[in-house]
């Protein structure tokens, strides 16, 4: 079989293809983004959803239809998808549904370091976690089998070092997507009114009890016998750090994160003199072991923060809590020199605006010289937070509040905030600036509904940000090019801040890093449209022909 050097994300994509996945969907988020891109490149059917909740709902629908579906997101995206996730545990699925949650311990590119393993416990869903690319491949295949066998969505936890680390992978399975059978109606299973939800919850707990038995005997977990004086229980990439830091120790590598194989772990802990649970992030395994009365020790609180590595594992084993060496700080990321956001930030600063910001590259405007962001909480939060400030601040301050959001983030969850803005407008009105650079820049230039192109850059209907604002009833809606005409952006901003009305200013200019690619995609799509027209009848003029929706073309 072919051996290749693959990232964990690429390995998941390969497994999805080899498992016969019908559809992959998700929202880009570091470190999960490359999974769907790689799945698409391999010939799988992949698409970006406007946000993680929608992605999960689409995946759930596909799985209700009996198909295999892969849904990908980063850890904070799982919060967005949490609502349908919990109920999906009750309804179960008919096809295979695997939801990847990629955690970012150490926050290389995130606003918090949350541990997605908590969601498996809270939602009552099985969860698997790989340690490297080969395991990412193998466990992804196992996850689909598990999902179909137990008719439950399966959570698949990864971390940055597994997603973006590369190691050797041998692919060994191939299964073409099976034909999907006609829709099977099953109302009591899929409609969660309380009368049906109550028995569904009982059924879920029964499944989890059965899954517990499965986990105890599962060959997915690895017990490596070694020194009887020292045993370590570890999960994910941490298990690899442990093997390097303490090659002589006995090691239990947990792959079935939920339910945990507690009886097996009890047996392991009893087989060694000292048993240490070493896990990145929260003490999920340690707490479960201690609650079950196992004789184990966890890690000191200091190691709850950031990533673990070989050094830190050595320290945990040595019970060394002395201060760790502080790594010299590298250069922080910053707005690109030619970024079209610069004039916007300059104007906001000049007029001393209070800026409710959002998640994207433009968050970097918070750094000097602009210090141009006063709040940044979660995707889409700039609208709600800005409105809250407007409601309560003294009038002079309220008038300075601006909500700032990127195009992809606006589509992700900013739209809901805009609905709130027109529904409960503050007395001083409000100003929303949408920084539309025509791409999801921070994660590496992915498409979204506002670009008018699908994941593989094919043309689709383009969502109009200004059109939505107008349709929702915003009084003042303007589109400006901040580079071609920075003066007009500033004049507009000042004028809108002075009104007691709702305003949306779309500041539109392509991301400097994406502009050339965008032109290439548009050209290719225009040529394709022309070809279709050619085949169907008289030729249309190049460039548009009524089908091209790009304004940059």
């Amino acid at each position, binding site marked *: 079989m072919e051996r290749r050097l693959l990232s964990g994300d690429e390995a998941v994509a390969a497994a999805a293809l080899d498992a016969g996945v019908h559809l992959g969907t998700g929202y880009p988020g570091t470190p999960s983004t490359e999974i769907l891109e790689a799945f698409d490149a391999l010939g799988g059917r992949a698409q970006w959803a406007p946000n993680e909740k929608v992605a999960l709902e689409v995946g759930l629908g596909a799985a209700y239809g009996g198909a295999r579906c892969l849904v990908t997101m980063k850890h904070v995206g799982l919060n967005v998808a949490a609502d349908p996730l919990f109920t999906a545990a009750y309804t179960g699925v008919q096809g295979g549904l695997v939801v990847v949650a990629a955690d970012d311990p150490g926050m290389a590119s995130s606003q918090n370091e949350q541990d997605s393993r908590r969601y498996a416990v809270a939602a009552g869903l099985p969860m698997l976690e790989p340690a490297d690319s080969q395991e990412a491949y193998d466990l992804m295949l196992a996850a689909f089998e598990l999902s179909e066998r137990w008719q439950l969505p399966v959570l698949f936890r990864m971390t940055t*070092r597994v997603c973006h680390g*590369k*190691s050797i992978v041998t692919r060994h399975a191939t299964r073409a997507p099976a034909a999907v059978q006609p829709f099977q109606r099953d109302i009591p299973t899929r409609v969660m009114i309380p009368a049906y939800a109550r028995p569904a919850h009982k059924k879920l707990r029964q499944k989890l009890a059965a899954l517990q038995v499965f986990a105890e005997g599962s060959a997915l977990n690895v017990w490596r016998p070694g020194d009887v004086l020292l045993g370590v229980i570890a999960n994910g990439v941490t298990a690899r750090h442990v093997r*390097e830091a303490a090659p002589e120790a006995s090691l239990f590598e947990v792959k079935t994160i939920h339910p945990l194989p507690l009886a097996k772990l009890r047996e392991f802990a009893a087989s060694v003199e000292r048993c240490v649970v070493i896990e990145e992030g929260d003490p999920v395994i340690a707490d479960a072991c201690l609650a079950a009365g196992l004789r184990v020790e966890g890690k000191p609180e200091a190691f709850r923060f950031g990533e673990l590595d070989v050094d830190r594992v050595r320290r945990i084993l040595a019970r060394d809590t002395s201060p760790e060496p502080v*790594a010299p700080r*590298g*250069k922080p*990321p*910053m707005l690109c020199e030619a970024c079209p956001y610069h004039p916007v930030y300059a104007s906001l600063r000049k007029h001393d605006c209070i800026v409710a910001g959002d998640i994207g590259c433009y968050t*970097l405007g918070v750094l000097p010289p602009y210090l141009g962001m006063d709040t940044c909480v979660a995707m889409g939060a700039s609208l709600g937070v800005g409105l809250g400030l407007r409601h309560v601040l003294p009038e002079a301050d309220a008038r300075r509040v601006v909500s700032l959001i990127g195009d992809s983030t606006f589509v992700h969850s900013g739209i809901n905030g805009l609905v709130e803005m027109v529904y409960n407008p503050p007395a001083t009105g409000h100003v929303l600036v949408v920084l539309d650079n025509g791409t999801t820049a921070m994660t590496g230039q992915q498409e979204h509904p506002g670009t008018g192109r699908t994941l593989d850059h094919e043309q689709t209907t383009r969502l109009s940000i200004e059109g939505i604002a107008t349709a929702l009833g915003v009084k003042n809606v303007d589109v400006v090019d901040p580079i071609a005409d920075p003066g007009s952006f500033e004049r507009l901003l000042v004028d809108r801040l002075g009104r007691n009305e709702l305003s949306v200013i779309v500041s539109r200019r392509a991301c400097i890093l994406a502009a050339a690619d965008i032109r290439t995609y548009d050209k290719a799509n225009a040529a394709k449209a022309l070809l279709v027209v050619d085949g169907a009848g008289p030729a249309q003029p190049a460039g548009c022909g009524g089908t091209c929706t790009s304004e940059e073309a």
Partner: protein
Amino acid sequence: MATRVVNVVVAGLGGQGAIKASDILADAAFRAGFDVKKAEIHGMSQRGGSVTSDVRYGTEVLSPMIPRGEADFLVVLAGSEVEVNRPNLRPGGVLIPPDAINEADLPNRRSLNVALLGVLAARLDLADEHWLAAIRAALPERLHEVNEKAYRLGKESVR
């Protein structure tokens, strides 16, 4: 264990090709038949911030991350990143700084990453054929000649 693990840290600023260089190195080691692991941090880093990538190869590689102070080689693409990354190097480890290559000699400034790989190659046990195959696999065809030249320039600069 037959072969000691070789640890290489590649560092630079977003956009300089540090990740690409580490991909090429990992691929060359893979083609030479070694077990290989690579770990990197990117994401927001592509906005011009610091980027580092760890490549480890040998008979069996466990952790993908090089323990601090255990890198055998440190390849740095930007002068500003040398001091930041120096603590990664083990005592007696080899630093390959950006000025190991005279930029004026490069066929294209963008190929500094590959030229520094050439400097590294002169000190590693990986055959040229694996390096060249990895370079070709990582780059579009129109860039092959320029980068092969850069690789040779780097490799010969060590003699």
